[in-house]
């Protein structure tokens, strides 16, 4: 019987072509969307981790409580020793100190008088220590649109919008005004090494970057760090591993009640991050459910049209003694075969499209210019094993639902009219 059904599908293009095309397109959309959404999530995770949170992050408890305000007066004082201990305890993690700070950047004219001033948020990372991965991790080389990365002390990187607004360029001298971690006023001159487009409106508006050694001098933070961020091997976030490290570290400090004792957080502890990921997952699920409904409606209609076209065939089969239930089941088997064929085609096409986009990416920086999310403006799809079934399941379910709805007509068929209908 299977052979009979299979031959019908292969030979009768009208029976199989439209449903296969519909399922293929539907499955392609699911697989491709899955890749895109996965890529966007990974992109967001990666950007947030690289610029803000690390995969894990160590701060003082006091700093952690007010983390949004970046209170450098609550920084870790003996950061060097703590980093050495972290490297010893968790050698797979790449540990690095960072300081976030705020202040004013003064732009002098040719006579050295203030031409303009603008508020800036500063990011200081370890650019200059041999073996530091920060330059690569933050993608500074790619982000620089004019000039060079920081390659010696006393240099500064300025964000593109700020540079355009205040008309500064590489080689210009600018003066930073701010306060040290002890509350004293501080200022220092820097030479602009490069202009950076971060691809994120928040950073592009007024971010500056300096080397952490300069920040320590500037902010009177010798051997201190506001945050020590850690990155898992190959820069890939692993929630379980991060949680394991966090738990292990925090357990050691549980009995220490000092508010300046260190505490570790992980990427997913960020309220916005977990909420965004939850939202993305819900959106994926909603999209898949909607797609199943839409495909089922299309396939239901295709099934009704097919049923009308095959009215004669079903009549003959009923007359020959085939039960209605058997005909219905054979239609379901047909649909299953068509669903599998469509799913394989759709998954293959979706997979190939994702593969191409994972290598070349889509540049949507123009769209993201005004978005305050930490996201790479070039989105790349993510290839995951989930793609093998993420489209297949809705593809097969939708055609089975569509066929089951259309197949109800078989049960309404009046066998008493068969002779008349068939003649």
């Amino acid at each position, binding site marked *: 019987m299977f052979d009979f059904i299979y031959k019908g599908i292969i030979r009768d293009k009208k029976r199989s072509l439209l449903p296969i095309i519909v399922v293929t397109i539907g499955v392609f959309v699911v697989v491709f969307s899955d890749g895109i959404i996965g890529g966007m999530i990974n992109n967001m995770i990666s950007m947030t981790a690289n610029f803000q949170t690390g995969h894990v992050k160590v701060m003082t408890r006091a700093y952690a409580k007010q983390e949004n305000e970046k209170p450098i007066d609550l920084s870790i004082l003996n950061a060097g020793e703590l980093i050495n201990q972290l490297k010893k305890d968790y050698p797979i993690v790449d540990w690095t100190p960072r300081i976030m700070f705020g202040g004013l950047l003064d732009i002098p004219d040719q006579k050295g008088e203030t031409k303009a001033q603008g508020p800036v948020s500063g990011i200081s990372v370890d650019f200059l220590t041999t073996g530091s991965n920060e330059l690569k991790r933050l993608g500074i080389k790619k982000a620089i649109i004019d000039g060079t990365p920081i390659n010696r002390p006393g240099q500064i990187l300025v964000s593109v919008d700020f540079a355009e607004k205040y008309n500064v360029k590489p080689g210009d001298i600018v003066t930073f005004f701010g306060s040290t971690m002890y509350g004293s006023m501080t200022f220092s001159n820097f030479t602009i090494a490069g202009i950076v487009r971060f691809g994120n409106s928040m950073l592009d508006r007024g971010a500056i970057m300096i080397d952490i050694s300069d920040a320590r001098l500037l902010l009177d933070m010798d051997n201190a760090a506001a945050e020590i961020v850690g990155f898992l091997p190959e820069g890939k976030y692993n929630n379980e591993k991060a949680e394991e490290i966090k738990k292990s570290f925090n357990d050691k400090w549980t009995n220490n009640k000092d508010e300046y004792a260190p505490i570790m957080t992980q990427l997913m502890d960020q309220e916005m991050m977990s909420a965004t990921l939850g939202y993305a997952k819900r959106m994926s699920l909603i999209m898949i459910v909607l797609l199943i409904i839409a495909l089922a409606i299309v396939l239901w209609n295709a099934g009704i049209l097919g049923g009308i076209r095959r009215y004669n065939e079903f009549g003959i089969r009923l*007359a020959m003694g085939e039960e209605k239930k*058997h005909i219905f089941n054979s239609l379901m088997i047909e649909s299953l075969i068509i669903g599998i064929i469509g799913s394989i085609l759709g998954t293959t096409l979706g997979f190939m499209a994702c593969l191409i986009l994972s290598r070349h990416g889509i540049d949507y920086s123009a769209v993201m210019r005004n978005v305050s999310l930490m996201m790479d403006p070039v989105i790349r799809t993510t290839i995951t094993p989930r793609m093998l079934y993420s489209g297949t399941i809705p593809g097969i379910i939708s055609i089975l639902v569509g066929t089951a709805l259309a197949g109800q007509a078989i049960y309404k068929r009046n066998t008493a009219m068969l002779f008349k209908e068939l003649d």
Partner: protein
Amino acid sequence: MNTNKVITISQLTKDFPVGESYFRALENINLEIEEGEFTGFVGPSGSGKTTLLNIIGSLDKPTSGTAVILGNDVSKLNTKESAALRNLHIGFIFQSYNLLPIYTVFENVEFALLLQKKSKEERYKAVMESLEWVGLTDKKDSRPTQLSGGESQRVAIARAMVKHPTIVLADEPSANLDAENSHHILQTMAQLNKELNTTFIFATHDEKVMQYLQKIITLKDGRIESEYNK
């Protein structure tokens, strides 16, 4: 019950609802058909021939009275039992052949045996034997669209006969055929009737068919007007 009576119909009436009223298609039908008969229901359109074939074929049920087909009272059969009766014991031949166009001649004939879950070897043997009866073994791989009308109806006969049914019901089998082909298929059916003792029941108003019938039951306005053996 006489064992060689394959069909016994007693005081059968069939009504079809028409709005709030009904139309009486068959009234007080009484007849018996024995195994191996070559019988025809003859009469003008609307006389009830096809309705009677429907009931004998277990495709419909009488409104009142009984129709016992091969020992089964069709009014008491459920859909599954009706389907089984048709599948195992009744073959159908239609005016419009009704072959499945996407399947070959062989596959069209084979289908009834698939429903009976016969083995591949059994199916092959039975299909080839059946095609041999109608002289179409050389066309076994052809599609119905490649056949003439006469050939198509011969395939339909092979399809009806392949399962060795006790009864074959043929509704106007020659209506779409020219005289030569009509005689050809009727000769084939008459020969199968003789060789296999299969009961053939026709619904027809074609004179050519009537020439071959051994027994003619004339229907008029849903009643048996006459019944005679030739």
